C-alpha cells in the first residue's frame, strides 16, 4: 500500500469519523465550562454511555434507541455530577475522578453481570442495522460528521447570540453578577452540565453503535480527556472546538492508517502500539502550543455560594 490521493481520502474519511466523539464531547464541555463547571468525568460518561447504548440497542434491536440510551446515560451521570458539584458545592475535579473510576469498574462489571462475558459485548462486532451513512469513494462517512458540524454552529450561536447564552456566560464569568440581576446560577449551571454530559453520552453511544459495533471496557480510550484538551485548545469557542477535534481526528486517522501498512511491521515489530500513542502525543503538543488558558471562564471550577 503506497501513499497516494486515495490513501489521503481514506485517511480523511476515517479521521472525520474519529473527529465526531471528540467534537461532540468537547462542544458540550465548552458549554458546561462556560457556565463555570468543569467535568473531567467525561471519559467515564462516554464509557458508560457506550455501554448503555449497546444494552438498549441489543434489547430493542433499534440503533436509534441505543443512541437515545447513550444520551439518557449522559443525562443521568451529568445529574450526579451536577448534584455533587453545583448543589452540594463539592469538588468538581474529585467528582469527575469518581465518575471515571466508577465507569472503569462498572462497564466490565455490568457486562459480566448481565451477559456473563468479560470485557466485550457482543463478543463479535455486531451491525445494529447501521445508522445511515454517506457513501464516499473510500469509506462510508457517518451522518454524525455533518451533525457535529451542526452542533458546533448551534452551540456557538446559543452562546454568542442568544439571551440565554449571555446568562450562561455570565454565570461562568462572574456568578455574583449573574445572581445580582436575578439569574438562577445553580439552575443555569445544572442545565449546562446536563447538556455537556448528554453530548458525552451520545459520543459514547456513537462509538459503540456506529463505529465499533460492540462495547469494550476501554472503548473511550482517553477521548474524554482529549476532548478536555480540545476545550482549552479551542479557547472555549465551539467553532474552533470543531477544528481542534478534527486535528485529533486526523492524528488518530493517520495512526490507524499507518498501522495497516504491512511494511512497517517488518521494520519495527509491534509498531502499531507506538502508533496508538500518537493521538495522545499530538494532544500534548497541540495543547502546549496553544497559548495557556487565555479565554478560560473566570469562575471555572469554583462552586458558587451566596454568602
Amino acid at each position, binding site marked *: 500500500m503506497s501513499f497516494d490521493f486515495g490513501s489521503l481520502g481514506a485517511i480523511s474519511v476515517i479521521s472525520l469519523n474519529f473527529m465526531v466523539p471528540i467534537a461532540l464531547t468537547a462542544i458540550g464541555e465548552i458549554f458546561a465550562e462556560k457556565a463555570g463547571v468543569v467535568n473531567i468525568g467525561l471519559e467515564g460518561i462516554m464509557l458508560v454511555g457506550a455501554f448503555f447504548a449497546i444494552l438498549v440497542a441489543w434489547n430493542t434491536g433499534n440503533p436509534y434507541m441505543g443512541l437515545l440510551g447513550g444520551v439518557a446515560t449522559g443525562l443521568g451521570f451529568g445529574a450526579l455530577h451536577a448534584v455533587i458539584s453545583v448543589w452540594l458545592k463539592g469538588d468538581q475535579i474529585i467528582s469527575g*475522578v*469518581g465518575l471515571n473510576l466508577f*465507569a472503569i469498574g462498572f462497564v466490565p462489571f455490568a457486562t459480566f453481570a448481565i451477559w*456473563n462475558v468479560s470485557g466485550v459485548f457482543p463478543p463479535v462486532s455486531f451491525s445494529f442495522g447501521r445508522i445511515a451513512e454517506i457513501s464516499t469513494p473510500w469509506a462510508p462517512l457517518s451522518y454524525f460528521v455533518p451533525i457535529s458540524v451542526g452542533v458546533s454552529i448551534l452551540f456557538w450561536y446559543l452562546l454568542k447570540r442568544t439571551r440565554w447564552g449571555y446568562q450562561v456566560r455570565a454565570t461562568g464569568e462572574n456568578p455574583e453578577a449573574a445572581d445580582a440581576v436575578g439569574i438562577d446560577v445553580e439552575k443555569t449551571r445544572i442545565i449546562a452540565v446536563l447538556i455537556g454530559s448528554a453530548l458525552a453520552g451520545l459520543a459514547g453511544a456513537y462509538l459503540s453503535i456506529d463505529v465499533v459495533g460492540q462495547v469494550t471496557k476501554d472503548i473511550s480510550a*482517553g477521548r474524554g480527556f482529549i476532548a478536555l484538551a480540545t476545550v482549552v485548545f479551542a479557547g472555549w469557542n465551539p467553532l474552533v472546538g470543531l477544528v481542534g477535534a478534527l486535528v485529533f481526528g486526523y492524528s488518530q486517522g493517520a495512526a490507524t492508517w499507518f498501522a495497516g501498512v504491512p511494511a512497517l511491521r517488518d521494520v519495527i515489530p509491534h509498531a502499531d*502500539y507506538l502508533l496508538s500513542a500518537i493521538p495522545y502525543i499530538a494532544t500534548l503538543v497541540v*495543547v*502546549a502550543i496553544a497559548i495557556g*488558558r487565555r479565554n478560560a471562564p473566570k469562575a471555572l471550577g469554583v462552586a458558587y455560594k451566596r454568602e
Partner: protein
Amino acid sequence: MKAAIPSGASGILSSLAESVFAAGVGFLASGILLAVLGKDPIKAFYYLFEGSFGNVTNITITLAYASPLILTALTFAIGVRAGLFNIGAEGTFYVGAAAAVAASFVHLPFGLGLLLILIAAGAAGAAWSVPAYLLKSYRGVHEVISTIMMNNIALFAMQFVVLDYLLDPTRSDKSSSIPIDARFPVLISPNLSYAIFFAILVCLGVYYYLWQTPGGYELRAVGLNPDASKFSGVNPRKPMLYAFLLGGITAGLGGAVEVAGTFTPFAIYTGLSNLVNFGFNGLAVALIGRNHPLACVVAGVFFGALQAGASSVQILGISFEIVEVVEGMIVFAVAAPQLYHMVRSRMK
C-alpha cells in the same frame, strides 16, 4: 509528636468520620447496584471481607495488594499538598515496573540487584513525570490533561517495550521474571514480602519531608497559597518540580514493588493486565487517606482488602471490577463533604 503536626490536629477526628462515612456511602450505593443486577449484596460483601481478612493467607494477600497501592497513593497525595492534581501514577507505575524488569537483567550479588531495581524504577518514574512539570510550568498546561495523556502514552509504549525488549524467551504472554535473589525477601507466606515495610518506610520518609523539612514546608505553603509563598520569596516552580519528581519516584517504586514484591510470576503480562488500575486505585486511596502519607497506609490496606476480596466474590458471578465500582462511589462521597455534614445534622 503533637508538636510535629502543627496544623490539623483538631481536624483529624472529623476527617476520619468523613472518610468512614464516604466508605459507608460507597458500600451502600454498590450494594444497591448489586441488588438491582440480581446479586445478593450482603453475601457479596461477606465474601469480600472473608476473602481479605478471613484467614492469615487472605490477610497476607490483602497486605500484598496494599503495598503498591500505598505507593501510588503517595503520588496523588504529594501532588495535592503542592496544589497539583497529579493523576499520572497509573502510567508512571507501568514505567516503573518496566524499568524494574529491565534492571533485573543485570545480575548483582547480595541483594544489590533489588537495590538496582528500586533505583531504576524510581529514576524512571521521576523522568516520566518531567514532561507534565515542564508543560505546567512553562506552557500553563493543566496537569490533569498532561498526566492523563502521559498515562495513555505509557500504556502503549510499555506494551511495546514488553513485547520487543522484555519478553520472556520461553513464553509469549509475559516479560521475563525477576530472579529470586533480586526480589523483595519473603516475609510470611509466599504472598507477602518485605515490600509492605518498604512501602510504609517510603510513607514515613514522605511524611518527614513534608512536615519536618524547610523544603516540605515550602511545598505545602505553595500548595495552600502560591501567592503568599511567592511574596515570601519562594519560586513556586521549585516545590512544583519536587512534587512531580517525588510523585514520579513513588509511583515508579510502586511499579517495582508490584513486579518484585507481590505475586508470581514477578513479571509484566503483555497487556499490562497485572498493572492496570493500580495508579487510579491509588488515587482513591489518597482521597480516603485525606492526602496524608500516614493515613494513606491505613487507606491502602482498606483498598488492598477490597482487591484481595474481589477474587472471592467472583464465585457469585461478580467480576473483579466491583472494586472500582465501590471506589468510584466512595470518591463521589469524598467529593461532597457537605453530604456528610447534612446527614450528620439531620441525625442530631
